[in-house]
């Protein structure tokens, strides 16, 4: 059988490999879209506008991806329930990538980028399709194969693709510029995905009926998420962690190229070397250390360490380096330090959050967490754009932008996040916030034994 189908108990490993290669092509298209910051920079100077356009992605996560995922659970067509979303999205996305390097004006460029962001969220149903093809017993190994291929794709993209943006090649009578090459390569990768899913993937109708609709629209869903007061502390924790993870967003590459004068190839080299060090040294080392630490200690170490290294990096660049411009080696050193320390909070965060979620509200909590994270990220991304623009207007000559000043905003957000975290920890210590995910949990084995059942419980 050469057609790949969903909902099998076992699937051939060749299916896994084919669909994982397909996913790498999809990721390559995503990496190609990473050049959109530079495309916007050609016609838009303000980092505020660039970050605002990029941050629409987070908004569409809420208003496009969530409804598409929700609806795709509840429909059935002759083409399946995920495929119609995925195929329709890819047709538009291929068109966007094809047209983007050809437009030279801000308005059509903005429209194409917004369309890309909208349909990128429509195509988020591809993850569900991927998971429906690979049955649970094979997912662990499939995930390992995927992680291995992803690292290869990342390295390839960093060294070969990202530096090509400014290149021009004259050959056999035509001229191909790097921007066209990158986007059209991304379009070819997505076209491959489209052809593969259209020709070789078939969805099988699920045996169980779709879950019922809540029937009260988006407002009802959001209302439900925040109606349960026991989840408020969890949302506070999620809010503070997103504040602490605020990055520069779309203006990060502009810091390296526009402000520090490095080429896009230098940027790729930075990612490549940093990624190699991460893969070979940092991740195994953090894994070894993490085994010997408590969850809360790890989280505090991660949070405090990240803040410390952000401050150190800012002080080092702003006050110690004479020209306020780090070398590639210095960027990699600080990047790796922040990445290593960030791994601790990354590993500890999710299990820690779930300690405070009652078992019967995990689904609601997960949806609420996604909502809180998206809204907070939207605010921080736009905040950083406004901050950099205002700071540059005050302290730089006209027309120049100090993207690095965004680090001050990041540090400020980190400090606010830490303050919320300290408040949370104190409330836990006072017993006002309870780890309901731990204390309210009675294992099935214990519940079956009357002696260990909850006090006062009847037979």
């Amino acid at each position, binding site marked *: 059988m050469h057609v790949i189908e969903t909902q099998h108990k076992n699937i051939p490993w060749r299916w896994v490999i084919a669909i994982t290669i397909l996913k790498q092509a999809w990721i390559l298209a995503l990496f190609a879209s990473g050049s959109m910051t530079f495309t916007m920079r050609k016609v838009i100077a303000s980092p505020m506008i660039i970050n605002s356009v990029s941050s629409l992605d987070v908004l569409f996560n809420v208003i496009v991806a969530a409804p598409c995922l929700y609806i795709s659970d509840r429909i059935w067509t002759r083409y399946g329930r995920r495929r119609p979303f995925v195929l329709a999205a890819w047709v538009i996305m291929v068109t966007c990538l094809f047209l983007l390097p050809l437009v030279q004006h801000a308005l059509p460029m903005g429209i194409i980028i917004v369309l890309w962001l909208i349909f990128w969220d429509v195509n988020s149903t591809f993850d569900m399709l991927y998971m429906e093809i690979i049955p649970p017993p094979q997912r662990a190994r499939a995930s390992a194969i995927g992680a291995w291929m992803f690292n290869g794709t990342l390295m390839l993209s960093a060294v070969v693709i990202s530096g090509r943006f400014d290149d021009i090649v004259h050959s056999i009578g035509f001229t191909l510029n790097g921007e066209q090459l990158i986007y059209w390569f991304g379009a070819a990768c997505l076209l491959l995905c489209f052809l593969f899913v259209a020709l070789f993937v078939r969805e099988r109708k699920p045996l169980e009926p779709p879950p019922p609709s809540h029937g009260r629209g988006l407002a009802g869903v959001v209302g439900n998420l925040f109606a349960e007061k026991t989840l408020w502390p969890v949302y506070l924790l999620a809010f503070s962690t997103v504040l602490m993870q605020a990055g520069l967003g779309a203006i990060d590459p502009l810091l390296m190229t526009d402000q520090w004068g490095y080429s896009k190839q230098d940027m790729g080299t930075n990612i490549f070397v940093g990624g190699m060090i991460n893969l070979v040294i940092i991740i195994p080392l953090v894994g070894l250390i993490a085994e010997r630490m408590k969850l809360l200690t790890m989280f505090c170490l991660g949070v405090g360490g990240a803040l410390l290294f952000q401050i150190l990096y800012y002080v080092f660049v702003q006050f110690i380096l004479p020209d306020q*411009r780090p070398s590639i080696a210095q960027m990699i050193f600080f990047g790796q330090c922040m990445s290593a320390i960030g791994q601790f909070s990354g590993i500890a965060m999710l299990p820690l959050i779930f300690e405070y979620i009652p078992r019967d509200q995990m689904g609601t909590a997960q949806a609420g967490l996604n909502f809180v994270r998206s809204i907070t990220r939207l605010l921080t991304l736009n905040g950083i754009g406004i901050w950099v623009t205002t700071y540059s207007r005050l302290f730089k000559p006209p027309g120049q932008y100090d993207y690095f000043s965004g680090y001050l905003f990041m540090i400020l957000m980190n400090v606010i996040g830490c303050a919320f975290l300290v408040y949370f920890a104190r409330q836990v210590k006072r017993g006002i916030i309870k780890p309901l995910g731990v204390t309210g949990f009675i294992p099935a084995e214990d519940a079956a034994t009357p002696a260990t059942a909850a006090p006062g419980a009847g037979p």
Partner: protein
Amino acid sequence: MKRFLILCVFPLVGLALIALGVIVSWTQLCLRLDGGKTAGRVAGMAIVRRDACDLVTGLDTTLALTLANGEQVRVAYRDYAPVAAQYGARGSTTPHALPLAALAPGTNAGGQLTRELRTVLADAARGDATTIRWALQREGRHADEPTRVVRLEKTETARGYFGMATLSATLVCDADGIRPAGAPASVPPRGTVTTRAVFDATDPAALLRNKGESMTAYLQLRGSVTNTPEKKDFLLYCEPYATEFRPVFTYAVSDRHHALLSHIGRHSGPTLAIILYGPCWVYYDLQQPARAVLIADPGPPAGAWLAWFSRVCEGTFTQWGSAALIILAGIIFILIGLIQISMAVWPSTRLWL
């Protein structure tokens, strides 16, 4: 039959992409594999705009540095190589000449010139306005150092052919240097573009008032006409993003000199891997030596090895990246196609386990 056709789609598209990748780089690939190899030089830069193009064949640069103690250093460069250097004490009207060896950065033969001063000179000679701002900023950190640079004046005179409608890929290389091919009437006379910029950090209060901007004067003349470029910078850095920079390389085969426009160029400024007036490798057709391809020469590992590695990657992928990406897309198509064909020919039994 339909099933067979569907199975053929991916390998066929993959093969078509690989063929396209090979066609795109066919000329360069043939020259690289079968051509003769010789050392060449990046001898000029074509600046190609939508409506006109310039051919820069020579660059004369003069740097005049004023130190905090009032001493002055003046260095003249031709095509980025120093040709004369003078050193004048405070109030002295008769500066004395400096040996050119004293200018090399990273050596201890500086004599009167400190290591930092030689770094400033090297950066300013090749660099753009931002590089000079950084250099002055670095110097400003040594507030008590009497030999720190407080003022730098750079005058760059680009020689060449300016304002041409088109530029053919083959150029003429003779004793006078390189020039565009064509009848003398169709080639404009040799001209100059002079850019002068002054960076002054003498008064820290004034610098603060200007929000750190040290450039205090800027003038660009095309011939004798004042020009206002998109960015206040030197000729190779003042253009808008859309302008293309295409290196011109020269090489000699059997005592005959050739000059060609490279098939690779870059937006936003000259490529970092192909350094103007630096060495390069040239692979030429043994039968027609006028057909050749430029290959970047990153030189041996020196200085910061990450920067060197980056230059190697840039040189390699600027040259072969476009073909490599098209071929890579083809390989992904073929890989997936082959897996599907294998599934059709040798179905797996796992599905029925």
